[in-house]
């Protein structure tokens, strides 16, 4: 089993951290093999940015993604660039507020999580990525919920653990609802 996940958005949205936390959860707290790689441009903020995670039961040779099973998209640009890359039958989770223009995609499961809005409600837009992680966990089960919570605690700035866990839960609930319809 090899699962490929791509997170994409723009610099400043915590895209890269999302990948790291997911991979770490799968690996350190989940006992699987996992690797995270990334790609970003010259802009310090606002540039296109992506983070790729491969999770597997066996050792991972090729660490990059060829055909993502899951896409987590947080900007229009990311959507335009990557939405069509997803594997047949794969999953796209996106923030509809950041992606006003969707095109028609066939054979793909699409979940719309207004992560930025939820994060704003929590008082810090910056945790939108963690909201997304919650939704990702609920929707795909690709990583264990508790494992991801551990990974979040290990990766966010001291003092913001609670806020982040709350964001995660909010995302998780939102995702749950979407799956359960």
């Amino acid at each position, binding site marked *: 089993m090899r699962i490929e996940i791509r997170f994409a958005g723009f610099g*400043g949205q915590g895209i890269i951290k999302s990948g790291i936390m997911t991979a770490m959860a799968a690996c350190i707290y989940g006992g699987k093999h996992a690797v995270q790689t990334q790609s970003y441009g010259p*802009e*310090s*903020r606002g*540039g296109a940015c992506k983070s790729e995670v491969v999770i597997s039961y066996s050792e991972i040779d090729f660490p990059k993604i060829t055909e993502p099973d899951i896409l987590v998209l947080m900007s229009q640009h990311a959507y335009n660039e990557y939405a069509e890359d997803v594997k047949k039958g794969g999953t796209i989770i996106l923030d509809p507020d950041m992606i006003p223009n969707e095109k028609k995609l066939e054979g793909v499961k699409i979940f719309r999580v207004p992560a930025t809005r939820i994060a704003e409600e929590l008082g810090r837009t910056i945790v939108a990525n963690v909201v997304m992680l919650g939704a990702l966990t609920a929707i795909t089960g690709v990583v264990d919920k508790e494992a991801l919570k551990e990974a979040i605690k290990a990766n966010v700035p001291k003092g913001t653990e609670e806020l982040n866990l709350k964001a995660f839960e909010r995302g998780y609930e939102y995702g749950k609802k979407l799956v359960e319809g």
Partner: protein
Amino acid sequence: MAGAFEHPFAVYLRAAMIPHIWCSGCGNGVILNAFIHALDELRMDLDKFVVVSGIGCIGRTAGYTNVDSFHTTHGRAIPFATGVKLAKPELEVVVISGDGDLFAIGGNHFIHAARRNIGIKVICANNFNYGMTGGQVGPTTPLEALTTTTPYGNVEHPFNLVHLATASGATYVARWTTLHVRMLTMSIKKLLQRKGFSFIEVVSPCPEIYGRRNNMRTGLEMMEWFRKASVIANFSDPAKAEITPEKIVVGEFVDIEKPTYEQLLYGKIAKIVKKE
């Protein structure tokens, strides 16, 4: 090319390269704006105008200005510009680059070009750190400031760039902040009209990378610091032109005449060629 957007300065910009890569609230755009403003007011001949930058956030400037332009390796804008200026002295050659580019890796070229009084013009965006690489300590970072490579506070004394430029021999030396857009534009106009090696330091907000770590999370907060701390002290002693949390001394510090390298050199050449 112009008209891709409708700002009156659009013709001075390479539309395909805009929007620029700079963060929200970054001072680099303000500097570019002031620079173009000065070009515009002076009606410079853009066919005889060269912008050279090194590597860094502000180093992208060369790519944005719609004149002959070159984006050198890190730190080498000045010697490249020297080659251009000496080869074609009729060109106006302006270097726009960062404090790291011009004064860390490129410091030697700066002091030597100033010493020789090569007629190139240098505008430095001083944002107190290396923006492009994510915010490391640089030669202008204040003592005790936090950066990604000074997580326990900076132990390096920063340069006083106007003092250094003066001691190296620059014939025009000024410092402004990005809040002083009017004075800055006026100063850039002077810089472009001087013959000799001329230098303007622009204290500039880098909110995303520097500000964030030092309690100024937005460009506005950094601009407010500039507003509160700035003291205009024209032609005061460059040695005393400090930049501290409480005080940023700005103004013009040097404005003198001295024969340029290319004047002296082409003078010799003229004599020798004639002698033959």
